[in-house]
């Protein structure tokens, strides 16, 4: 890098890059939560995710553009853009867990997506930039065109989804507080869903099971 750009390839910088490159996708636990969320949304809520790429803006401070879920949802035979956030938590000391209510928790992230039109515009540009690579008859292109139409002809009609993935016993309080706060502001007419998925397997075991490693 140094010879090419004139910037120094410091050891620490290179070590951070190397560590990330060495980290296999199969060892990234947060991806499991996102995968659960996508599968559930596709199976139960007529959602479609055509672009299978890590979209999580996990850059420093996590305050950039981006969303964990970027796809489409069909509501009343109408295709809408879907933007969403996913968090995984085993916390039981607080109900709801802090990943719902903290400064970078789901509730705050969804409120940002609602309030920040520019953030949504960038997500739409991002989708547009991916969709153009597919042929016109591909479902991705068709969903994109339909979502665009809903968004721009109906006063920005779209859908927000927050998914909390848990490995502890179910408790309605996990999402009810946030839901009531959010729905006051943004349930109608935009549409919002908050889901909690309770898995009967401890999260430490998810990766070994997925990777076929017996314990």
């Amino acid at each position, binding site marked *: *890098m140094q010879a*090419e*750009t*004139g*910037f*120094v390839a*410091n050891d*620490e*910088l290179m070590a*951070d*890059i190397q*560590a*990330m*490159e060495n*980290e296999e996708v199969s060892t990234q636990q947060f991806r499991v939560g996102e995968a659960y969320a996508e599968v559930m949304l596709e199976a139960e809520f007529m959602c479609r995710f055509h672009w299978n790429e*890590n*979209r*999580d*803006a*996990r*850059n*420093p*401070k*996590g305050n*950039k*553009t*981006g969303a964990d879920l970027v796809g489409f949802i069909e509501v009343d035979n109408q295709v809408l853009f879907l933007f969403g956030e996913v968090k995984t938590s085993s916390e039981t000391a607080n109900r709801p867990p802090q990943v719902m209510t903290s400064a970078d928790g789901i509730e705050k992230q969804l409120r940002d997506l609602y309030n920040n039109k*520019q953030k949504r*515009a*960038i*997500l*739409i*540009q*991002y989708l*547009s*930039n991916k969709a*153009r690579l597919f042929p016109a008859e591909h479902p991705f292109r068709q969903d994109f065109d339909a979502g*665009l*139409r809903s968004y*721009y*002809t109906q006063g920005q009609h779209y859908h927000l989804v927050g998914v909390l993935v848990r490995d502890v016993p179910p408790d309605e309080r996990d999402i009810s507080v946030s839901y009531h706060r959010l729905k006051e502001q943004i349930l109608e007419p935009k549409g919002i869903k908050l889901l909690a998925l309770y898995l009967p397997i401890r999260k430490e075991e998810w990766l070994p099971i997925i990777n076929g490693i017996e314990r």
Partner: protein
Amino acid sequence: MSVQSKYGHLEQAYPDMLQGIAALIQKAKLATRFEAVQLTQDELQQLETAKELCEVAILQLWDNQDSEIFKALCATYFDITSLLPHGEGNDLYIYEQIKLIALGYLGEHWHFVRQYLKAHSAKIEALVANGDWNTRMLTLCFKAVVYLVQKRSWADIDNAVSLINQLREEQQAFEKDFLDQVNEGNRGFGASELVSLYHFAKSIELLGQYLMEGRPNDIESQLHYHVGISREFAQKAANITLGLLYQFFEAFAVKMVRNTIWYTTRGVNNWITKFNQFIAHRDEKGVFELMYPQKESILDGQLLNPAHRAIVLNLPTSSGKTMIAEYRILQALNQFKEQGGWVAYVVPTKALANQLYIQLNKDLGFIGIRVEKASGAIELDGFEQYLVEDSGNQTDFDVLITTYEKMNLLVRQGLGTTAERPLVLAVVDEAHNIEEKQRGLTLELLLSTIRNDCEEANFLLMTPDISNSAEVVDWLAGDRGNVINLDLDWWQPNERVVGAIEVSGTGRNYDLALKTLHTDKATYEIGESIPLASFSNSAVAKREITAAKWKIASCVASEFLSLDSPLIVLARHPAETYIIAEQYTSRLEMT
């Protein structure tokens, strides 16, 4: 040809969502000029929507960047976005600005991009780069890009390169702190973002180097290489905003390279290389980049192809025709200078001849081209007498600037007709005069004389428009003629409104309004009249104002009088000009 055809592409892309948007954009343009034109909140919202949809349409056509629709959409995006407020916060503001610059370039609007940056220079200069190292990198890189676009002289480009070097020096002081404050699990993302920014900075430096000296030769592949790495690491950093920013920057950078004098005229001949070196490195008004009509004329229009004996150049006023002529002149001289060949630059008026003499001397004199003028009326002065003696065989100028009439006289006396001092190129400015009754005859006679008597002569006819260009080149050069027109018929070097003034009311209470008119020159047009001024109990009655057109013009102009911007009022004769000037002077003194 109209602005409607430029904005119409966006409307056609989303007919049910953006109906009437072409008219609204024009209204928004006029709102920046006339206080009486105001946009409603709803209209501003429609423009926001149009901007976002325009961007989607542009991305859909991203692989067809040479298509006219793509360029029109990019130009439209620039026009809309430059009218709207921009995002807050360094990162998003910079992202929006780089996109605006890039799409402005891709829409062949770099002359407007420069104006825009000049108008917003205070905000850009005020951008603080005190934050984290990644934000500091992005902010200073952006400022460097702005220098490269502005490039008022080589010093600006030097400033851009210096900013990148400054970042290199700061790396050790900032990088570690930045990485240390990133959450443990996110360090790889933070590091990736930095690597992407380092390659971005390098590509800006490369672009600056190329603008300065036309090197490295493989600039495009080097840019693709570095921006490619930037994009790869933006993806690893999971930063989709940066990823999109690099995509826009890459297209912009390649476009800028291809606009340069170096890229457009590389390897034509030594004179042109010397000329390029001179105009790029002079202290003031350095020229590095060609405007769209200049580039199109040279590349698509084959301006420098010696096979074309006669070229008609149909370009709008102020699109840099003089410089196009200079390239053609250098090409002709390169071919024939050794054989005593010379170029005539003929213009309709003495004033223009004098102006061009100064300009060409400044541009070509420094590289060793001798420029002379002969602009007297019918009589010959000493120099001109010398010109015709011996058919000018003893003269040593390379370019002679003169009027149609004078050139007629000189050629008829033998100048340019001999093998020792052949006229090799006649550049005819304002050639549309050929369609006028009186001047047309003189010009036609001149062209006919040159065609018959000057064996080696080629022709370059420059005009905003000649209706029968094809016939003219055919007459002058048979099948070796060429007509150069712009592909983008909506392209204009400046923005204009053409309108008529309406005076309504009675007695001492009356209003002045501007009714925009439809033209074929890409001017802005809105349906409703624009109120300009309202008088109640005025000292001057309406009938006095409307007694003569110049009085109406003068009255309107006085409402816009400002020492900051020039204003031209046309009068019928000198006496009227004095009356108008005196009115304005007393008005300015009062204020």
